[in-house]
């Protein structure tokens, strides 16, 4: 089984977000970058599937500049066999999908896994676009994945519940918990990751229908109005007549 796992490098979930240059640049100073949390679930499941099958190969795919290599090395330490980095800023979801599809066309993957969305730009369109570009089905958000021969059985989240689905490989899947538990790299994994192959390729040409303009931070809420714990009736009155939400 050959699995391609696409990962993003995103600010740690505890990060405070700020912008510079007239709100056109994200300030990365002081930010710790991690494997996208949803991508990390996808990677963990890929490692489990390979272990269960006893054979196969996991390739990690990332679009980003050289400073994201520690994140790629971490994915290799968790259990991927080799990695490909497209040497470019991830301009938008269309750009990333084009890069993944262009690479995947040159190989033959049974599964292309990624998170259901990145937690920085939250577009959530990459898995669907890759499926269309490759002409294979895409499913998201997948919460459980089992492979039997050429058949995949999946649990997919639907509103207010879940659905069990079956489809034949190859597939593109957007993943989320509880598909697997995040894996912490072992010392042996970290050592071996240093020598695993990491190929750097240049992006394919591309044009998108999107144009970034600027960032904006939400306006902070005005001071919280405190109510004494012995006056809960006052809260009811405020919700009714001031906030008008009940």
């Amino acid at each position, binding site marked *: 089984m050959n699995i391609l796992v696409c990962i993003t490098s995103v*600010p740690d*979930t*505890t*990060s*405070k*977000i700020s*912008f510079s240059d007239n709100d056109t640049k994200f300030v990365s100073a002081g930010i710790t970058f991690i494997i996208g949390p*949803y991508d990390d679930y996808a990677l963990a499941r890929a490692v489990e599937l390979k272990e269960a099958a006893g054979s196969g190969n996991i390739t990690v795919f990332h679009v980003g500049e050289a400073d994201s290599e520690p994140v790629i090395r971490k994915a290799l330490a968790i259990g991927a066999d080799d990695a490909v980095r497209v040497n470019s800023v991830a301009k938008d979801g*269309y750009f990333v999908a084009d890069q993944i599809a262009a690479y995947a066309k040159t190989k033959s993957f049974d599964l292309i896994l990624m998170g*259901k*969305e990145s*937690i*920085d*730009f*939250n577009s*959530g*369109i*990459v898995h*669907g*676009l890759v*499926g*269309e570009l490759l002409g294979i*089905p*895409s*499913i*998201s*958000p997948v919460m459980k994945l089992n492979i039997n021969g050429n058949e995949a059985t999946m649990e997919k*989240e*639907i*509103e*207010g*519940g*879940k659905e069990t*689905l*079956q*489809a034949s490989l190859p597939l593109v899947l957007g993943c989320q*918990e*509880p598909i697997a538990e995040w894996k912490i790299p072992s010392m042996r994994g970290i050592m071996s990751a240093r020598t695993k192959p990491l190929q750097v390729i240049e992006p394919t040409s591309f044009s998108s*229908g*999107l144009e970034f303009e*600027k*960032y*904006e*931070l*939400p306006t902070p*809420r005005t001071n*919280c*109005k405190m*109510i*004494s*714990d012995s006056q*809960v*009736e006052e*809260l009811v009155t*405020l*919700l*009714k007549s001031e*906030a008008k*939400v*009940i």
Partner: protein
Amino acid sequence: MSVLIFLETTDNQIKKSSLEALVYGRTIASRSGGSVTAVVAGNPSNLSEAASHGASSVMQISDSRFSQNDTQAFAEALSEAANQKSASLIVMAKSVFSDSIVPKLSSIWKAGAATNVVSLPESDANFSVKRSIFTGKAFEAMKLTSERKIVSIKKNAVAVSLAPAAGEVVAFQPSVSSKAFSIRTVSTEKATGEILLSDAEIVVSGGRGLKGPENWGLVTDLAKVLGAATGCSKPVSDLHWRPHHEHVGQTGIKVSPNLYIAIGISGAIQHVAGISSSKVIVAINKDPEAPIFKAATYGIVGDAFDVVPKLTQALRNSL
């Protein structure tokens, strides 16, 4: 510009968030006098709301295969409908279902797509919209420059208002490809009668301050009085006190209700990110320094085991 709006249904009802999408699309169409067409599958009991909220026509899919919610089939159907109506914009409410339709439709219909949108475009020519990014921690303004455009709207970004239109219902039989319905649905589990967290007007959530799953009655009793959905913080779902699908936050469900009540939740930045677009936030926590009070509109410092039952009773008396 002529606009097509996809109306999603749940429990045989057009969702309120889809009516928000309809109002969004109607507002853009009215700037230039374009047509407003709604597309719906099945026969929802509140179908007349499409007309009352401004749809000049409603394309109704009766093909029962569409009840499977196959995203490929819906993407192909919406593309065909938009071409029939010469629409240049397709609008839908952001949801776990539409999230998978948007990229497929973008590819099939050859349109640029913006998801998570919270504002109307500047104008038809300058289609600059604001999207929620960094999971609620920031926004970006971006322009759709493609000729055809797709927008998915974040819940509660649009105020719903009536604008009666003809809303003539026309049968629509999409001609889908062999790729549609290729994924087999083995079984479906769906809670019925429960209020959907992502679509709820009011959400009551509990955190570790509730000390254990046996105390969840505090949350559910309050939710019942308010007709609210229930949620929880990440530690609570990690501890398996509550199911994963109730986890509200950056890596869980993002909510934007009118009223969010956080009980015994300290307000970690990841939790606040998932609730930041709520209209009003009430925090109940015994620690006056808890960061949740910085995100809240109203706060009570006190013991949840004392305050929440009193609040539930006070609401019961007054609603």
